[in-house]
């Protein structure tokens, strides 16, 4: 494999030809959604121009080609996550839908009054709200692992939760979207399995950025979004351990997910199609497959290493801006390619607005993690997040932009 070359990578992304407000684009919001390489765009255009038809239905040539491409994407995802069978890979709209699938289907069939669902204070709302709803509907209790001042989970709280017993499920994020905190998922997997419960991992922020092996991670379920790993929006996936999926009732019902339907009863299709009711996001799934092939060609290890370098550089440079407070883990090794910060005297929205005037795209707000914001005592943060195409020069422009913010606010 050739050595990682960020400039060669950038040439694969048409959007970087774009200027905003007369400046070249410095896209520092990949934790929200990633930009798309030509290979992904082409895969979808090619499908629509040459092979598009519905999947698993048509006996004609186009239907067969679409089906083959769609199912090839499933094999790509299987290999990407280290799953043992494509039957364990369910296509969903995104990680949110994948997590909801687990909460509705596994949760309602397996949890009841007195059972305990464990989650953490670090979660994105998408891995929090479904469990709140599930707890309310089943009578289960929701308990939390809290975070310390640096946004790391206080694992010592596990003992107290274990002592109270009845833990049936632990839902945890692999990497925090708002702080970048990397969570020791393997440790949590061993703990929850020791309690007789299952582990649900929100991998939306980890799968795009480093190699994943669901077996090594100890995940019973693993959710991810395609659009964060350079695929189109509208496709994502869920890995589920086969025996769990086999025993689960369907999530959505309708066409595709059935074996035979009579007016009053129906038998379900086999895995994974039991969980894919209706016409799926065909082109998006195929585009997601192309994205994973693209990332795999470059190498997830190389991508991770590149981002780690950018993150260290960003932390160093932010240190020189007066009034900047970086949130999250102090040790860069415990952090993915996400840097969340506040600038004293200026609200994050104003920071982001002024940065946009020099085409530096960052996210401002609570990042769908209001409990994290509350715990750290900030209403919102400015977040810069990185990917395989991020340049050190873009960090320089971020820092120059922050000086501009301070000048604008006469600080």
């Amino acid at each position, binding site marked *: 494999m050739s050595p990682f070359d960020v400039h060669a990578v950038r040439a694969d992304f048409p959007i970087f030809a774009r200027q905003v407000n007369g400046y070249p684009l410095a896209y520092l919001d990949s934790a929200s959604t990633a930009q798309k390489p030509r290979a992904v765009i082409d895969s979808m255009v090619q499908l629509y121009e040459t092979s598009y038809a519905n999947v698993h239905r048509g006996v004609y040539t186009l239907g067969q080609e679409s089906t083959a491409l769609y199912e090839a994407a499933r094999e790509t995802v299987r290999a990407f996550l280290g799953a043992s069978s494509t039957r364990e890979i369910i296509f969903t709209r995104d990680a949110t839908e994948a997590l909801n699938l687990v909460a509705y289907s596994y949760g309602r069939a397996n949890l009841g009054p007195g059972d305990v669902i464990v989650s953490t204070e670090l979660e994105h709302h998408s891995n929090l709200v479904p469990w709140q709803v599930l707890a309310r509907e089943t009578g289960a209790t929701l308990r939390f692992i809290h975070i310390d001042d640096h946004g790391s989970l206080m694992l010592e709280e596990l003992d107290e939760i274990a002592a109270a017993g009845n833990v049936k499920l632990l839902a945890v994020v692999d990497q925090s979207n708002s702080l970048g905190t990397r969570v020791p998922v393997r440790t949590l997997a061993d703990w929850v399995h020791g309690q007789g419960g299952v582990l649900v991992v929100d991998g939306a922020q980890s799968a795009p950025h480093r190699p994943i092996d669901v077996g090594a991670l100890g995940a019973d379920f693993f959710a991810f979004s395609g659009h964060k790993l350079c695929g189109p929006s509208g496709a994502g996936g869920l890995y589920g351990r086969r025996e769990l999926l086999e025993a689960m009732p369907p999530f959505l019902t309708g066409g595709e997910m059935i074996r035979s339907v009579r007016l009053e009863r129906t038998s379900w299709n086999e895995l994974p199609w039991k969980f894919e009711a209706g016409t799926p996001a065909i082109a998006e799934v195929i585009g997601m497959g192309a994205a994973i092939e693209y990332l795999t060609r470059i190498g997830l290890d190389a991508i991770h290493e590149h981002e780690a370098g950018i993150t260290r550089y960003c932390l160093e440079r932010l240190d020189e801006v007066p009034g900047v407070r970086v949130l999250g883990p102090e040790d860069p090794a415990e952090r993915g390619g996400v840097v969340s910060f506040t600038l004293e005297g200026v609200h994050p929205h104003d920071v982001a607005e002024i940065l946009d005037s020099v085409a530096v795209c960052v996210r401002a707000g609570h990042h769908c993690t209001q409990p994290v*914001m509350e715990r750290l005592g900030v209403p919102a943060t400015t977040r810069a997040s990185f990917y395989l195409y991020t340049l050190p020069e873009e960090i320089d422009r971020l820092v120059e932009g922050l000086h501009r913010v301070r000048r604008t606010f006469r600080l």
Partner: protein
Amino acid sequence: MDDLYRDHILDHYKDPRNYGPMDDPDVSAEGQNPLCGDQLSIDLKVHDGTIADIRFHGRGCAISQAATSMLTEMVMGRPVDEVAALGREDIVEEVGIPLSPVRLKCALLGLGTLKVALHRHLGTPLPEGWAGMDEVDWR
């Protein structure tokens, strides 16, 4: 961008008028912008159908804080029913800067919250277009 952070905006942001909690208000309301988590409280004293005193506090961006500060100056001493009838354009004109759709929400947070307080005081429903402003839930 330079249009946005004009002197009067920064002045009201850094030195907000009528800022802070009020003892024993006649009516209060809270507003929030769920997109960014910004929060705002407005307290009022009403005498003889006019706004005798208004104070606000909360946290938010320069636009939402400055617009609310200007709003308090704008409505102080004016009849309640007149203020309750203020429209979006009135505050937009007062703020006097070009606003994108996202920032328009920031600029209108104060007026929306004030409307909740006034209609609460008058016992009248929120007008169409402002519905939902009173459905906030925070401490």
